[in-house]
Each structure stands twice: as structure tokens, then as C-alpha cells.
């Protein structure tokens, strides 16, 4: 080692960055892409309780799409996902704009909006479940105040339960979206806004015409973050409803978990995982591609 020629040292310097990156990249290749391939293999096997490597073609996929539960899960994801993304963004933007009006107590309010993101649903699920439970929670309290006919029983109604899941999800993530927008707002050149004010534009117009279009990158980041969180939402449902009442709050993630681990249909579970991955790829790959290409300019 001590007698390395300058040429070799040079080469080492050239290769060093790649050597530094290599372990992380190798980990990702094995633990993410290797496992995806492995899941793909399982989805075409006859695996039930533990992995079995016997070819079964697309049988598991056929069975998957013949399951009413799977369709329910997809439908719920559509309802939950769109509500979650839209409301989180609307609320996050609204709060960010309000907070951007030189609020003196901003330092107090910001962590209040942000803290739900810091808590796991394993923790807050207990409180939420209790709060939404018609017999003990909010409904009971309001009735106790004298409004006897007040009803808030969404948690136990199969047609409404998915909306309670969305409420809890929005509570958790909207503060984080607010922070992303606030960061974006703070990055906007204030001279430009002053000029617009001088021109006599109303506050509303300034936001609609100038500020919000400038926030486009923050919108995009928010959509991506929320979309992948919606698809991966799992402990939210488990903590609140366990997928019930009936199968009213089944999501693809809970579907996959139960088919793989409790229903001994590992191949079907793996097939649903592959479909989920394809869904995520359909959102992420175009985004990543355009983001990374743009930078070149």
C-alpha cells in the first residue's frame, strides 16, 4: 500500500466516489429490486403458506381479479386516495397562505400543524378509534351537551367508514403539506409581489395569478409524496377499522397483507403486490424521468 505509484493513486481517486456509492447501491439493488423480482416469481408460483417455487403461470392474477375484495380495495383506494390528495393539498395550501400573512404566533402554530406527522397511527389510532366510536366518543359528547339527535357514526357504517379513514389520514398529512407550501412561498421573490400590489391587484388576484403558479414544483412534490403515502397506507386502516365493517375499508395494502400472511394465499398476495408496484411505477417513473431530464438544461 505504501508504495503505490502516483498513477494508481490517481486511479483510486477516480474510482473513490463510485466505491463510496457502491455499497448503498448494492443494498438497494438486492433489497429492493432483487426482492421485486422475487415477488414476481412468487406471484407466478403455487405458494400458499410459505414460498414454494412451482410454476403456475398467471393463475394467481386471475384469482386476484376474481376476488370481490380486491375490487373493493381498488375502489376504496380511488375514493381514499383522491380525497386524501385533494383535501391535503387544498388545506395545506390554505394554511400555508394564512400563515404567510406575517403571523406573529407562527412559531407556535407551525409545530401544531406539523405534529400529527410525527406520530404513528399505532399511537393515535387508539385515540381516533375512541373519538369516532359513536357509543363513547364525539357523538356521545355532543349528545351529552344536549343535542340528543346528533349522529356521527361513520366509523360503523360500511358506506361511510372509508371517509373516516380519509379524515384521519388528512389530519396526519396536511400539516406536512402545509410546510412544503410554506417553504415554497418563502422562496418567492417579495419584490415581485410588491410590484403587483403597487399595480393595484387585489390579494386574491395576486395569489391566483402569480403566487400559485410559482408554487408548481411544490405542488408536484406534494402530489408525489401524498400519492405514494395513499398507496402505502396501512397502519391507518389497521388502527382505525381493521378493514371493517365488513370489508368496507379494505385497501390494496391491507388486502396484500392478509392474503399473504393470514389467508395462506401467498401467490395471490404477491400478485397484488406486483399490481401495486405497477401502480406506483406508473406514477413515479414519468415524474422521475421528467425531473431528471429537466435538470440537464
Amino acid at each position, binding site marked *: 500500500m505504501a508504495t503505490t505509484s502516483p498513477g494508481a493513486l490517481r486511479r483510486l481517486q477516480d474510482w473513490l466516489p463510485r466505491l463510496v456509492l457502491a455499497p448503498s447501491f448494492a443494498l438497494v439493488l438486492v433489497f429492493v429490486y432483487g426482492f421485486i423480482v422475487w415477488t414476481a416469481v412468487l406471484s407466478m408460483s403455487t405458494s400458499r*403458506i410459505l414460498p414454494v417455487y412451482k410454476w403456475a403461470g398467471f393463475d394467481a392474477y386471475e*384469482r386476484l381479479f376474481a*376476488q*370481490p375484495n380486491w375490487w373493493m380495495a381498488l375502489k376504496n383506494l380511488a375514493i381514499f386516495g383522491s380525497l386524501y390528495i385533494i383535501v391535503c393539498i387544498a388545506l395545506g395550501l390554505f394554511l400555508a397562505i394564512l400563515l404567510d400573512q406575517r403571523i406573529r404566533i407562527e412559531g407556535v402554530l407551525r409545530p401544531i400543524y406539523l405534529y400529527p406527522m410525527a406520530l404513528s397511527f399505532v399511537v393515535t389510532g387508539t385515540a381516533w378509534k375512541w373519538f369516532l366510536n359513536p357509543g363513547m366518543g364525539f357523538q356521545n359528547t355532543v349528545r351529552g351537551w344536549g343535542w340528543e339527535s346528533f349522529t356521527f357514526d361513520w*366509523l360503523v357504517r*360500511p358506506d361511510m*367508514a372509508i371517509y373516516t379513514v380519509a379524515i384521519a389520514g388528512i389530519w396526519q398529512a396536511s400539516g406536512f403539506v402545509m410546510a412544503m407550501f410554506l417553504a415554497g412561498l418563502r422562496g418567492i421573490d417579495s419584490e415581485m409581489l410588491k410590484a403587483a400590489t403597487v399595480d393595484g391587484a387585489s390579494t386574491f388576484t395576486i395569489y391566483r395569478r402569480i403566487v400559485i403558479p410559482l408554487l408548481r414544483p411544490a405542488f408536484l412534490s406534494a402530489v408525489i409524496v401524498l400519492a405514494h403515502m395513499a398507496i402505502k397506507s396501512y397502519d391507518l386502516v389497521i388502527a382505525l377499522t381493521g378493514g*371493517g*365493517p365488513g370489508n368496507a375499508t379494505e385497501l390494496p395494502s391491507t388486502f396484500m397483507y392478509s392474503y399473504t400472511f393470514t389467508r395462506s*394465499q401467498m401467490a395471490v398476495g404477491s400478485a397484488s403486490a406486483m399490481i401495486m408496484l405497477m401502480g406506483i411505477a406508473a406514477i413515479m417513473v414519468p415524474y422521475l424521468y421528467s425531473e431528471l431530464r429537466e435538470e440537464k438544461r
Partner: protein
Amino acid sequence: MRKILLAGTAISLLASAGAFAEESVEVLHWWTAGGEAAALNVLKDDLASKDVAWRDMPVAGGSGVQAMTALRARVTAGDPPTAVQMLGFDIRDWAEMGVLGNLDDLAAEQGWAEVIPEAIQAFSKYDDQWIAAPVNVHSTNWLWINKAALDAAGGETPEDMDGLFAMLDAFQEQGITPLAHGGQPWQDGTLWESVVLSRGGMDFYRQAVLEADAEALGGDTMRQVFDDMTKLRSYFDGSFSGRDWNLASAMVIEGQAGAQQMGDWAKGEFLRAEQVPGEDFVCIRFPGTQGSILFNSDQFVMFDLGDEEKRSAQLKMAAAVMDPSFQIAFNTVKGSVPARTDVPDADFDDCGKKGMADLAEAAEAGTLAGSLAHGHGQPSSVKEAVFDVVTQHLNGQISTDEALTRLPQAVAAAQ
């Protein structure tokens, strides 16, 4: 030869208790409710007295859902726990994967074959080898009634579905929740299988559930069952969804509710609340099912650990589980009856005595069948498929007609 030697060492180890204080068993279970944990402590203390340390691996939630995930991870990693609480068809599934240890020598030594009912042996053995030690026999077709509410309703226990509805109506008039229920798929399934047994009798249960006969699953008797389920649903309170079973039991204990349909593990909760059978609460077979039993048997499955020291601890645990005095101590706390039939019933309360007598009678008459809801009727894929339909129907997501079309389809698709 090696095996015999091994078992020999294990038994001599048993004799010289105290020699190996280092021994320990790691036990995966989901018995975290009060009565269950108390029963498990009996085993823990018993093993401690034999110098085997207990390393607890509780994984709570959803009747073992997460526990089975944790187990899969451990087995896949090649590092299974010493012993795992398991039920029915799951035991067969794991045995089929060839990962379980063999308990034949210990079983032969202690004569398990003579004292365990055939129906239970069917799940403790695979390929004619003992792979699990049965702790108890639970039966699921019980009804637990608050005595005060029953007395106010005339004091007569119902004998059939109509009698049940009449009693629930009377409870309704008293202003309490007539039927305490927890809206989780397995609890819905437990209620459903009792109604199936009540309406159709044991032959119908066998045909529809155990043989998964499509005609029976979509036929007129089943229509009656689903209609009954709809009617029973009207006796629940408003926030039953997702409630744990022991909280439903607590409603009966506190008199907020009149009755609960649940397996005999519910008795553990009554006893812990210092209630006395016959005085504070009444246990009867689910109306219309007297004489038949839907059972499930908790067993400790021993995994093949390939390590002699661990195996010796494992055999000690299996021996302790099968010990008659332990079976009495454990089951009086847990609410179940011993898996061994040669155990005297003197220490059991009235419900326990009734349970033991019913079990013996049903085993004799051939009216003892595995409970679907608790993994002794069908493999878990079929069980969950039935749960899907039953729970969606009970929650009003699908009509009775749809349920009758869906049920045979779902069962066929899961097989």
C-alpha cells in the same frame, strides 16, 4: 436410535430438575387478554419450577393475525421460536412444510394416544407423528347470559332460535343491549357457525361447512341462517364494529347487555370479574345446539430446532403441558376443558363440568366437529372466504340473496 436416546436424555433431565438452570423456552402466542394471560402464567410458573425460563413472545391482535406474520418471518429466517400457540388446520399446514419437531417418543412414553380424543388427535398428528401438544378443548357454541337480566325476563333459558329471539325481545324491553357482539370477522363467523348448527343440526354443519357442499351453502336452510343473522344484528348496540370480544363480555358482566354468543374462553373474563356461574351469569349451549359441539383446541406446536439443548427444554414444556394437574390448573382459569379425557372434573365450576360432560357425550355420539371460525373446520383460505361473506352480510353490505350466491362461489374459489 438417536431420537430414542434424545428422548431418554430429556426425560432423565426432567427427573433431575435444577441441573440446567440455563434452559429456556421462547413461546409465541397471542393470549394477551386478562384471563388468557393468567392461564399462561400457570404454565410459566410450572416451567419455572422445573428450571426452564420462559421467554415471552406475545404478538397481540386479531386472533393471531400478526402472530402468524411474525412466525413466518422467524421460520423463513431459519430461527423459529421454541413453541407456538396454534390452531387446527394451521398446524397441518406448517407440518406439511416439514418444519415441525417430532414428539412421538414423549407421546409414547406418556401414553397420549389413550387420553386424547380422536378428533383432536387428528390435529395433533401429521403423517401419524405427534407434532403438537394439545392444551385444551374449547367449544364455540355457547351463550353467556346475565343472570339478573334473565330472571327479569322470566328465568327460562331458550331452547331454540325462536326462544332466543323471545328472550332478546324481553331484554330489549328492559332497556339494555339485548346481544353484546364485537364486529370483527372471526366473531361474526363464530356467531354464524352456531346459528348454522342450530338451524341445520350436525349433519347439515358437516355437509355445508366441513364438506363445503355448494348446494348446502346456497340452499334454503342457509337462507334461514342468513335471515337469522339479519335479525340478530338488530339486537346489537350501535358501536359494535371492531369491538374486542372481551369488551363484549364485559358488557354482559356489567349488565349493560343481556347475552353474548362466544366460545368458552369468555368464561375466563367472567371469572376474573369474580362472577359465579349460576348466580351472576348463566352458561348454556347456543339455543338449539345442545348435544353437539363445535370445538377448537389450542395446541403448542414444537418446531424442529436442530439443537439438542433446546430440544430438551421443548420436551420439558410438552411434558408439562400434558401433565394432568397442569391441564386442570390451566383450564380452570382459561375457561376451556382439558384436552385429556382422564382428568377429574372436581376442580371445575358448573360451566366447566357441563363442558366436560358435553364433550364426552358428543365424542361418544359422534356429534363433535371442528369449528370453522377457529381454524378446525377448513384451511384458513376457505375460512376467511366464508368470513368475507358472513361479515359483509351482517354489516348490510350485501343482501341475503347475494350472500347465498357468493358463499358457494367464494368457498370454491378459495379451495
